């Protein structure tokens, strides 16, 4: 489940944002992406998740192993917490959501409609989805937004446990989660040179 990225160039809206990226994500390790706003962290994560094609370069080992958590949580307001979580676990072919509910402290909310949750509670539910996917590589885009201090600590513990059991994670975050097995990758040196060939990629 090792993911190799070789000489990767990615773009957003027809503009090249990052180029020449090389890194390897091993089992049990986490990679923290750093860089100023707009450098292309989200674009890189979406490319890894297979939501958009790379402009150049190669990603190997990323097929069907990635659980992606983006800026929005993919929750349905009229479904309850349990129904939301159960839906995603069934989509990924699992049926046990009790562990995810416990680990993210959602049991007391289990029968509340997701639309009535606070932003932090919604985020916890969105992240609990990662556990029910059963996928080994977590791709996380700003996972700690709107979480309180206790929840951040709880989430850091969950990621550590995930890494200890052979999983891996790549995350874009601005706060330090205190992960022992984490490497940091600063994206600033990979910023695409101005004037680098942009292309109309909308229908290619």
């Amino acid at each position, binding site marked *: 489940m090792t993911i190799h990225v070789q000489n990767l160039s990615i773009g957003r809206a027809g503009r090249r944002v990052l180029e020449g990226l090389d890194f390897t994500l091993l089992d049990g390790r986490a990679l923290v992406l750093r860089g100023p706003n707009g450098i292309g962290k989200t674009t890189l994560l979406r490319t890894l998740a297979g939501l958009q094609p790379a402009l150049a370069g190669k990603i190997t080992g990323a097929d069907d192993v990635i659980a992606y958590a983006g800026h929005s949580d993919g929750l349905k307001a009229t479904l309850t917490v349990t129904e939301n979580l159960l*839906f995603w676990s069934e989509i990924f072919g699992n049926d046990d959501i009790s562990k995810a509910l416990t680990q993210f402290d959602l049991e007391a909310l289990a029968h509340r409609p997701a639309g009535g949750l606070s932003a932090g509670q919604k985020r916890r539910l969105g992240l609990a989805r990662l556990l029910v996917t059963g996928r080994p590589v977590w791709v996380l885009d700003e996972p700690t937004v709107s979480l309180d201090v206790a929840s951040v600590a709880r989430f850091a513990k969950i990621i550590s446990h995930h890494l200890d059991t052979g999983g891996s994670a790549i995350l874009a975050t601005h706060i330090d989660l205190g992960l022992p097995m984490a490497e940091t990758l600063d994206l600033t040196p990979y910023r695409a040179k101005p004037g680098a060939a942009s292309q109309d990629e*909308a229908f290619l």
Partner: protein
Amino acid sequence: MIALLRRDLAIAFRAGGGFGLSIAFFLIVTVLVPFGVGADVTLLSKIAPGILWVGALLACLLSLDRLFALDWEDGSLDLLATAPLPLEMVVSVKALAHWLTTGLPLVLVAPALGVLLNLPPSGYLWVLVSLGLGTPALSVIGAFGAALTVGLKRGGLLLSLLVLPLYVPTLIFGAEVARRGTAGQSVDTPLYLLAGVTLAVIALLPFASAAVLRVNLR
């Protein structure tokens, strides 16, 4: 797959899901037409099959823009695209859910509304059959239009313009089946063509819809 269908149906039937909107629209059209056309009973029974078909088609169009837009807004479309389910299957299941919550209820209420339009007794069966055969095509074509316009602000207008021409063959053959059936003529030719259009779009369009969704997700 079943989970996705169950979720979409659950959302449709809960508060704010939009179930009933299409039926209400269909009801309004068929109630208003006799007032507009006048109390000419023979004329009404002559145009009844066509009115029912146009009404059902427009009612179907009404709920299309929500088909992918809601999943797009809350991010679940991104997550579904990274799930093990093929996107073609996601599109098909969502079209099926749309048909079950929109097309099927329209088919079932059409005979009741036929009474308001003085539909001749010989027409009920054929209105039911032609709508039953034709409305799945409306949902599948609609899903393609919705996939094309997902992510556009106020994409509903563009969606209607894109989808309406694609609806025309289904409307022509469907209304023809209902008209000929009502008049007691042979319905074979339009019936086969209607069924052919429906089967062809069910077989082919999910691939096109999935392809445009992938482009729109970038």
